[in-house]
């Protein structure tokens, strides 16, 4: 038994030394640019906190653009976006891992950290949108299991916990590496590595437990991730409003989340590759694969889009006419078609060409897709609210349209800064690329082995 296990956990010393130097370097010293970046993120986050305090202490009628018809604004559409991004952990780590796509190895931890950050700030977005955040506890005291909001609360906390555990378990061997090889760090940091490494010795039994638990959790987060995406879609699909009354909605949201996951992965991979000089590990091959995945996901999402919009449009029932015409040829048409072009057609067509699957072009495409993706979710929430069954009549002008206020935009910007901050800080204290997983992948089948303890 032990022989079989040993083969996987071991690799050449020379290779390993180079690798750990490369991958641990970002932790050793933070450059000037890195410091400015962190300061910037903290500033934006604080601005968001201040904006939120303003919103809560002053009248929401003044500080936000929310009104009776558009009572869900960009907070909720941003929440949808965050949950969608949160699926990256499932796609780029769990699915690839379980289906033995070896190129997942250097990407998996990046994906998991983004997922945790996004789900965390998704949850925060919901609380920010609440009228009475002081009564949050009522969800526990009086929670109704029949309500999709309760499903969402349970789903998000569960998924977040699962993601954190799944991030932590493969981190244990890496923490020992940090402890053993990074000496010029503050004492508390080394102490933290020691404490979090849970007495890891790298014995065959420990490896066996680690791998087994990882596999179980990896299998668990796939349904969990898909579930919270779907529940989020159900927040809309369980209502009687025509534009959301769709049996296709869960699948539509999940396909959208997969597309955005590929985009956000591309984005993060490019940034880490440049910022931490990780070209050797985050190779052009990864971008090639990500580009291909993007084409596939855009295709799937496009397919669900046709089901979601064009089939109701073919029938053009009185109930759907209202919203659909507004999106296709009405006030929101320019918006809608740009989202279709940049959010579906661009990621489907452009990465078909190998030249577009090079790092920089794909990075630019991924940014376009992410922006379009954010607005796609905006287009699900706001025009939906503005086209109820009974016409909106005889209300003040500000009730009939929606444009987010400065406070709302600041808070949303802060949630983005928050996700980036979580990812950045994590990469400053922990190896963002799993040293042992990469080493294991590269060493598959080699004879010369060295237990790296």
């Amino acid at each position, binding site marked *: 038994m032990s022989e079989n296990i040993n083969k996987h956990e071991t690799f050449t010393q020379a290779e390993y030394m180079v690798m750990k130097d490369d991958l641990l370097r970002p932790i050793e010293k933070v450059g000037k640019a890195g410091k400015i970046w962190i300061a910037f993120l903290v500033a934006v986050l604080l601005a968001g906190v201040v904006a939120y305090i303003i919103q809560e202490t002053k009248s929401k009628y003044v500080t936000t653009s929310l009104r009776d018809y558009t009572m869900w604004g960009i907070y909720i559409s941003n929440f949808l976006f965050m949950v969608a991004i949160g699926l990256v952990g499932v796609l780029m780590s769990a699915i690839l891992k379980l289906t033995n796509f070896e190129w997942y190895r250097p990407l998996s931890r990046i994906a998991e950290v983004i997922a945790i950050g996004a789900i965390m700030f998704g949850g925060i977005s919901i609380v920010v949108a609440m009228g009475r955040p002081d009564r949050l506890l009522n969800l526990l005291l009086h*929670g109704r299991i*029949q309500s999709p909001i309760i499903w969402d609360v349970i789903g998000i906390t569960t998924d977040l916990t699962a993601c954190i555990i799944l991030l932590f378990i493969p981190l244990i061997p890496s923490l020992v590496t940090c402890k053993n090889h990074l000496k010029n760090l503050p004492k508390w940091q080394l102490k933290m590595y020691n404490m979090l490494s849970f007495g*890891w*010795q790298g014995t065959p039994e420990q490896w066996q437990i680690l791998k087994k638990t990882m596999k179980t959790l990896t299998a668990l987060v796939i349904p969990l991730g898909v579930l919270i995406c779907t529940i989020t879609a159900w927040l809309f699909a369980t209502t009687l409003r025509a534009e959301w009354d769709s049996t296709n909605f869960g699948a539509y949201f999940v396909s959208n989340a997969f597309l955005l996951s590929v985009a956000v992965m591309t984005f993060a991979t490019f940034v880490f590759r440049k910022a931490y000089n990780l070209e050797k590990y985050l190779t052009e091959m990864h971008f090639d694969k990500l580009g291909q995945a993007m084409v596939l996901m855009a295709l799937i999402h496009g397919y669900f889009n046709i089901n979601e919009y064009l089939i109701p449009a073919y029938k053009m029932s009185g109930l759907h006419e209202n919203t659909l015409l507004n999106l296709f040829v009405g006030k929101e048409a320019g918006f809608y078609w740009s989202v279709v072009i940049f959010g579906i057609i661009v990621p489907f067509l452009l990465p078909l060409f190998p030249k577009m699957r090079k790092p920089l072009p794909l990075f630019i495409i991924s940014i376009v897709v992410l922006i379009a993706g954010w607005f796609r979710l905006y287009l699900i929430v706001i025009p939906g609210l503005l086209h109820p069954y009974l016409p909106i009549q005889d209300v003040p002008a500000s009730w009939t349209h929606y444009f987010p206020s400065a406070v709302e935009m600041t808070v949303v910007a802060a949630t983005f800064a928050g996700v980036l901050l979580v990812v950045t800080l994590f990469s400053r204290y922990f190896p963002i690329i799993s040293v042992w997983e990469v080493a294991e992948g590269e060493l598959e089948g080699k004879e010369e082995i060295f237990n790296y303890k």
Partner: protein
Amino acid sequence: MKKYNYFLTTCLSILFSIATAFAQDKVAKIALTFETVDSLHVCKAFVTSEGQPVVELPIKLSVKRLFTKLPIGDAVATDSTGVATFEFPNDIPSKDGKLTIFASIVEDENFMDTEVSGEVKWGQIVVSDNSNVDERSFSAGRDRAPIYFIAISLLIIGLIWGTLLYAVLQVFKIKRLGKLEEIKE
């Protein structure tokens, strides 16, 4: 101009009410009797004034409801013996079968407005169907969620959190194994 109009109408209405008050000075007494003949509910109002039966006087019948009184048919005039006979419908719903029935004289030229009432068990008993509130359903309160739904939810939550707990326990197992290893060394 408007003020003047208002003044004029007030004066006229006062004059009118004085005139009618004089006309309506007679007091009529109504006695209500209820009888059921061949499952037909009949309500009789016997009207007298100064000991004499009143003839040809329209009497209105109504039944008490929560907000207002529901008129039963049109007004019926008293006959030569001073009795107005009403056929009372048997489909007037009531919680306990009891109905409060009113007979009244309203805006008559000669008689003052009068009203008498009587209680009788002529109502059709209705039972409040609260099934949509009492039943376990998705729209009911938290304590009335469908059993199967609670069971499935708890099962799913339990399975997932059980797995998570298992994972955490595994981490501590790793720690224990590490300690054992240290001792061995």
